[in-house]
């Protein structure tokens, strides 16, 4: 996939816009999303059991992000689910560090 293809994937996730959700005691809010070159750039806030997770400046950058999620034996295009999954995983990683 070339830079244009990667940028299209990032753009598909930017189109999800600001979104908030709760998963496994984490409340996560994407307050801003935009393209930065071919990358997806998000501003993220996360709360775990009433305590704000230290995410540094809260800027999450994704190079060549996924837009598909497993759905049983097949894969389906679902930018919002993919966005929530990759952000949640990043929050978990930051929370452990």
């Amino acid at each position, binding site marked *: 996939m070339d830079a244009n293809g990667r940028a299209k994937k990032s753009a598909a996730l930017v189109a999800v816009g600001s979104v908030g959700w709760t998963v496994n005691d984490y409340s996560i809010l994407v307050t801003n999303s935009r393209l930065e070159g071919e990358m997806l750039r998000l501003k993220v806030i996360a709360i775990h059991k009433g305590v704000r997770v230290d995410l*540094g400046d809260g800027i999450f950058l994704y*190079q060549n992000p996924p837009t598909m999620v497993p759905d049983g034996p097949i894969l389906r295009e679902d930018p919002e689910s993919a966005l929530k999954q*990759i952000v949640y995983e990043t929050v978990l990683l*930051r929370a452990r560090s």
Partner: protein
Amino acid sequence: MTTLTVYPDAGSGSTTCDGYMAASEHQIWANMLADSGNSSDDNDSSGVFCTTKTDQDDFWTLYRSGFTFDTSSISGGATIDSATLSLYGTAKLNELGSTPLHVASFNPSLNNDIVNADFAQLGSTTFGNIAYAAYSTSAYNDITLNASGEAAINKGGITRLGVRLGWDLDGGSFGGSWDAEKETGYSGYYADQTGTTNDPKLVVVYGEGGIAPHIHHLKMAGGL
């Protein structure tokens, strides 16, 4: 601190890639380690990351894998706070005994194509590892890179990482219990599981560099 997550490109010929390299020959362990490699693939959606197999009376295959990541968005003056390689596991075997999966340096001939000769282009210094028991076959395995691994993050360029068995990294005599037609190793998803939330990824937490202000003379009005 900003958090950058990068995924390799699927296939070959783009900017980055991932895939395996293997030596598949009937030979003793020492020769297997020194082999130049005779097969590779960077189009597998899932498969072996690193493994060794035996045949009737010797070793038959040794697999290693390589991953390249576009970290060119990190400026040269940035400070790396942490780096984590995450591999989504699908299977593991320890029929020959258990040995960790190690991350090491990788110096392929190209950043966007895996070739047979890249088998011999992995370093012998560990950048981090995950134990057999800890390796998940249904989730991401997060391997925190040590200082050597952090130093391998290519600010402004392409970061290249390899994966090999602990016995392979050690480079000495075989550390397992040899048995005929058995296997020890790790498998998972490559980036050719195209654009999915199971792709290999590298997460780098970094701060942009800058010149800290120095106060040479401070005069306070009214005293002191």
